[in-house]
Each structure stands twice: as C-alpha cells, then as structure tokens.
C-alpha cells in the first residue's frame, strides 16, 4: 500500500478542519475564529490502494513568522517531509486567499488547490473558471464544499493523481525586473554546478526575497564569494524598479499583481448592489454596537449559565436516583463488608458524583462551541480590546480566556495566537481564573447545598464572572510588576458570520463529553478507590470493639445511633487520610475548614472532578447512619458552615489547575520556573481571597 502525506495549508477561516472532516469523515474540532488549529493535527484514511495522511496545519495569512502558530506552519512546510501541499482557499474571498497560494507556489512543491465554500460562492454569484485557473497556475484547482460534500471525491481522486504524476512546473511569474534577476542568479548557480535538492529558481527567489534560511545555507558555501556581488546588484536593480524600500513590500506587491491577473481571467462576479448591507453587516450593526455590544455579550453569557443550571438540573435528578439505586442494589448482593464498602462507598459513590454533572458539562460545551463556530468570538475580542488593553491584556487574549471556561488545556495552547512573549505569559497566568468545566460540578454541588434553587443560576454566573474580574485585576497587577514591556499590536480578522453546523457541534461536544466520561471511568474511579482506601484503613479493631460493646449494652435507640456515629467519625479521623488531613488542618483552620475539606482540595490538584468524588466518599462514610439515603448535597449543607463553604468555593476558583493543565502550562510558558511562579501566585491569591471571603461571610 502506498502512502501519501499531505500538508493541508490555508488562511484562517477557510474551513480547513471542516474539509478534513468531510474528506476523512473524522472528528476534528472546527471553529470560526483565527487559531482553532493551534497544533498540527494528523488524520489518516484509506483510499483505493493508498494510505493517505493529512496534516492539518494552523491557519496562516502568510508564510512569515508572525505568531507561533504561523511558525508551526512555515517550519513544517520548509523542513519536514511530505508528498504534496493541499492548499485550501475560500472561494468567496480569493483575492486574499491567493496571496498565500502564490507564496506556496514559490516553494516549488507538488501542490493542488481546493476552492472551498463553492456553494457560498454560487449564492454570492461568484463564477470561477477552475479549469482555466488550473492552467494559469500550473496546479490542479478543484472547487469543493465541505458543507455539501460537493467535489470531495474529485478532490481525493486528484490528490492521488497529483501524487503519481511528475511535478508540473508552476507558473508563478514575477515582473520583468525580478524575472531578469532570477535568471541571472539561476545562471550563476548552474554555471558553478551548485549541488542542491531544491530547484535553482527556488533558491534565486529565496535570495531575492531575503529568506534568512536560504541565506544561512548559502553563506557557508564557497559559491557565496562569487554569488554575493551578483545578488547585491540584483537587489539594487529590483529596488530601483520598485520605489519601495523593503523587499517584503515588493514581494507582496508582486504576488498581488500576479493574483489580480489570474482573478481577472478566471473569476466573474455578477454585479451586486454594494450599497445593500450583507447579512454579516446587519448582524454586526446590533452585536458590535458601541453601546449595546457589551451588554448583549454579558447577557448571552448570563443566559448560558442560567441554562447550564436550569436545564442541567432536570436530568441530574434522574442520574442521581440511578446511582443511589445502583449502590443499594449492588450493595445488597455483596456479603463481604470490605468489598461492599469498596464498591458502594468508593467506586459507585465516587464515579456517580462525577457522572452526575454530565448535563451541565454538555450545555457549557455547546455554548462555547456556538461562540466559536459562528464567528461571534472575534466580535467579542473587538469589543473588549479597549477594555482589556487598559488591564495589560490583548483583545485576542479573550479567545484563550473564554476557552478556559471549557478546559484550561486547550486554553493554554490557544494562547499561542499572541506573538508577544510578555502578552502571552500574562494571558497564561490569567487563564486559571476562568473556571474550567471540571470545576463546575464543585460549584453546582456547593451552590445547590447553600443557596436557594431560584438563585442558583445567578450565583453560578456570579462565581464565573467574579473569577474573570479577579483575573483581569490580577493581569493589571502582573503587567505593572512582572510582565512589563511593549504590548502586541491588535490586528485581527472578523470572519463572516456562519450558521453553526449541527453536525460539527455534535462532534465537538460528543468528543469532549466522551473524554469527560472516560476520565470518570478511569482516572477518577481510581482516585475514588484510592481515597476510599486511605479513608478506611488502617482498621482499628480495638476502637471498633470497644464501641460495639457499648452499643450492645444499651437498648436506647438514640444512644445507639449516637454511639455508632461517633465510632464512624473516630474511625475516619484515625485513617490514613484523616492523618494527612489532621496534619494540614492548621493551614486551613483560619479559613474555617475542617480536615475533610482540606483533603478534598488537595485531591483537586490531580483533577478538579476528584474534589466532588472525595467529598462524596468522605461525607458518606462519616455521615449519620440513619441518613444513608440522603444526598451529598444535603449532607454538605448539614456538616459545613456557610462561611467555610464560601472560602472553599473561592479556593476552588483560584488555586492551581489540575495536574494535566499544569503540565501543559509549563510547556507553553517555556519552563518549570514559571510553574513554580504560578503555584506561588495562585496559592497566595487563593488563600488571601478565601480568608477575606470567610470573614465577610461570617457576618451573614
């Protein structure tokens, strides 16, 4: 079986990921704002006798090294092995998209072009002669639509053909002056029989366009001595012809002239009334209105959290009931006390406590996916940049920050869209203040236990928004102290609004929910069992026996119950977990927390969901015997004072993210040093805020 490796390249918002979805029928995450594909993703599928792998590279406007994600793409294209380039372009905006195409043509590789969104182009009366364009460019051009799947088969078929046939000479031509100099350098290279894998033309273009890599390579070669004067002359000649100073402008101009030539020949646009507003403009008139824009955004976010709570709580009761039933019926069939406790109190209680929050998680993820895929996210970046800028953040920091409400891991990664190091580091430090989806169960649990059902949605919204506000204040403080320096310019595309595709949202949410469930079944189940073990052992037979004798001696039911509660409490306290908890209790005492809460917070360092399962295990073991059937919410309400609960929530909002996220943070920030800073920073802020919160809440 032959293997074909394809590099998928295109500008942001041209539907690259969606096209890969259509081709390979897989499930990649697709978004409608710059920077969805932050790392290259690879998908594989079989077609006839070929095994095709597509590397989906981050969207880039040009092959320059402006941001890290753009660097990922150009590094891959220049240094890695692949068979051909598949360039995806937006049919409705070819004048922009061909700019990258012509740069790609200058790489001199096998290539084909997919004109995506051909269905939209038809609607906009844009008529593209793809065959003629193929002829003019010297590469195959295929109109496709990732949405309607039109042309996909032809595209795959053409990919194989391009792979099998020898490379066609691309027809990228420059203006006379440049072509003349390219020829000069080519001649010099061939006269000296310069040995290289790439074509002479490519080297010549690279040298003239001041490509640093090519300079480095040639600089170490003997030919450099004779080449340099020729090159200097060439550049001087070109610059006198164009009265621009910088080569980058000259080449941008050249590419644009070439593209305009192609477009005049191949694209016919039926006259449309330009005074008529497009749908996007009409929507923008409302959504980015100078006065209404921000209130609308806040309202939408508020609505999302209301939905999360209101609709989410309906199936929660069913799930809760199911796990109580499961625990009871499984428990009845296990005679061994230890094993029953392990299964019912450890496994089922722990995993059940986490699975319970699936409905909330789904709603939150659907909300974020909608924000991303419609194009609204970049509008919000536009609206908020002025405000963010005052606090030392960047409008585009908003994208990683909102992603942070879902999960910190992709959020840390999407911070790469910020080029400036100090802007990016600052954003990385603040992401944790945006409470992630895994923290939601803890909030829902505590809000449910301590607030009335009517106010739950509002409290939840308040938790999220105050976390975000605190984050922004912290950004200002950090900007003034640790991350001084120039801010990055803010220049961002605002893509057309697109109707979200139900299929894509479904895929995104499905894969995220599945990941959450998988985590619940593996990592969290294991953690729950571990917590169960640590809280049940060592057994203390002397203590148990002495209490059981006492219980046997009395006939008063009330005294019996009290004694057995006391026993459970004492057993828990002398367990391994109890010992650890007692050891760290003094640290948490000023916050009004007992050792159980302290332990739950520590387990949250592994994963935030574990906090819930730990509380589930700890409070079901130490709970009242005659209240075995009460829910965790009721038990928390009974055993935890209000002020301590407030302190607990505040710590949850601020302290170190989970282990996996911390590792990603360390990688993205560029060193363990920053992880130590993050730990110290979050711990200090969390503790001080919780301390204040506790004392304020004591007054209620």
């Amino acid at each position: 079986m032959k293997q074909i490796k394809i590099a998928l390249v295109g500008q942001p918002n041209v539907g690259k990921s969606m096209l890969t979805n259509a081709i390979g029928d897989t499930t990649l995450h697709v978004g409608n704002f710059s920077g969805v594909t932050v790392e290259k993703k690879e998908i594989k599928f079989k077609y006839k006798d070929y095994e095709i792998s597509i590397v989906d590279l981050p969207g880039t406007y040009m092959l320059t090294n402006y941001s890290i994600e753009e660097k990922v793409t150009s590094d891959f294209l220049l240094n890695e092995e692949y068979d051909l380039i598949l360039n995806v372009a937006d049919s409705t905006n070819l004048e922009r998209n061909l700019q990258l195409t012509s740069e790609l043509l200058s790489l001199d590789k096998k290539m084909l072009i997919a004109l995506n969104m051909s269905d939209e182009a038809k609607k906009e009366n844009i008529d593209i002669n793809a065959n003629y364009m193929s002829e003019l460019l010297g590469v195959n051009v295929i109109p496709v639509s990732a949405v309607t799947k039109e042309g996909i088969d032809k595209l795959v078929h053409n990919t194989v053909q391009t792979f099998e046939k020898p490379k066609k000479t691309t027809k990228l031509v420059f203006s006379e002056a440049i072509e003349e100099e390219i020829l000069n350098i080519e001649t010099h290279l061939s006269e000296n029989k310069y040995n290289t894998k790439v074509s002479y033309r490519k080297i010549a273009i690279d040298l003239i366009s001041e490509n640093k890599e090519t300079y480095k390579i040639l600089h170490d070669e003997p030919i450099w001595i004779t080449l340099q004067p020729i090159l200097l002359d060439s550049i001087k000649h070109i610059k006198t012809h164009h009265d621009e100073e910088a080569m980058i402008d000259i080449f941008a101009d050249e590419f644009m002239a070439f593209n305009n030539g192609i477009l005049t020949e191949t694209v016919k646009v039926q006259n449309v009334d330009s005074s008529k507003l497009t749908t996007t403009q009409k929507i923008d008139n409302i959504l980015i209105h100078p006065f209404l824009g921000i209130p609308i955004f806040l309202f939408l976010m508020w609505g999302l959290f209301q939905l999360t709570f209101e609709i989410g709580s309906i199936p929660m009761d069913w799930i809760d009931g199911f796990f109580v039933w499961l625990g009871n019926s499984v428990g009845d069939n296990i005679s061994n006390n230890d094993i029953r406790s392990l299964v019912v109190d450890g496994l089922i209680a722990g995993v059940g406590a986490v699975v319970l929050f699936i409905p909330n998680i789904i709603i939150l993820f659907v909300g974020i996916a909608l924000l991303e895929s419609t194009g609204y996210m970049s509008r919000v970046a536009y609206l908020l940049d002025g405000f963010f800028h005052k606090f030392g953040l960047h409008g585009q920091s908003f994208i990683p920050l909102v992603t942070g409400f879902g999960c910190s891991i992709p959020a840390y990664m999407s911070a790469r869209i910020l080029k400036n190091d100090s802007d990016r580091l600052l954003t990385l430090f603040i992401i944790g203040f945006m409470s992630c989806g895994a923290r939601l169960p803890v909030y829902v649990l505590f809000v449910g236990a301590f607030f009335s059902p009517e106010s739950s949605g509002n409290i939840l919204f308040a938790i999220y928004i105050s976390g975000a506000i605190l984050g922004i204040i912290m950004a200002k403080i950090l900007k003034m102290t640790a991350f001084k320096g120039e801010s990055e310019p803010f220049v961002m595309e605002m893509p057309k609004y697109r109707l979200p595709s139900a299929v894509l949202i479904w895929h995104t949410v499905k894969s995220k929910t599945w990941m959450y469930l998988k985590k619940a079944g593996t990592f969290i189940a294991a953690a729950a069992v571990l917590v169960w073990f640590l809280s049940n052992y060592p057994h203390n037979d002397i203590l148990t026996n002495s209490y059981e004798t006492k219980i046997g001696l009395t006939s008063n039911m009330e005294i019996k119950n009290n004694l057995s509660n006391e026993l459970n409490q004492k057993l828990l306290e002398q367990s391994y977990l109890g010992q650890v908890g007692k050891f760290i209790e003094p640290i948490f005492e000023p916050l009004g927390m007992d050792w159980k809460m302290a332990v739950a917070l520590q387990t949250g360092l592994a994963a935030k969901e574990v906090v819930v399962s730990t509380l589930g295990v700890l409070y079901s073991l130490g709970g009242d015997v005659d209240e075995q059937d009460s829910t965790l919410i009721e038990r928390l309400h009974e055993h935890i004072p209000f002020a301590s609960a407030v302190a607990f929530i505040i710590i949850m909002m601020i302290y170190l993210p989970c282990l996996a996220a911390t590792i990603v943070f360390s990688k993205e920030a560029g060193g363990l040093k920053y992880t130590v800073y993050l730990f110290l920073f979050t711990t200090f802020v969390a503790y001080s805020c919780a301390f204040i919160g506790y004392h304020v809440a004591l007054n209620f």
Partner: protein
Amino acid sequence: MGKTIIDCVLNKSYLVKKLHTTGALRQRLISFGILKGTPIKYLASTKMNATYEIQVGKMTLALRQEEAMKIEVEEYETN
C-alpha cells in the same frame, strides 16, 4: 503625516498611501493585504474609538487606534 484611518469618514472608500511602521506590525498589515494602493473603508469603532473596524477588500479587520493611526490614506475618486 497626512490623513490616517482615524480621520476617515464612515463608510467612504480610501486608498492606502503609506504604512508608517516597520517590523512585525508592518508584516502583519501586509499579510492582511494592506498595501500601498489598497482600497480601505472605515466601518465602525467601539466606544471612545479604542478599536476600529475596517474593510480591506472583502475582509473585515479590527485594529486598535494606535495601529489605525499608522496607516496613511488618501481620497479615492470613485467616479
């Protein structure tokens, strides 16, 4: 320096005359197709004119006032 984007009349077409910036920002602007002679239109701005929305070709871009002030434009004769 002559007129820049911040002096433009709303929804009127102008031509880019000169980019008063070098380095990364210049590269960024060029990568969005903002070159000498490109038609450009000022569409909207946020409160206090902190951020501008402009149209370049078929693309809508957002940029800060600081950046908008670095793009010099000239009147564009439509008819």
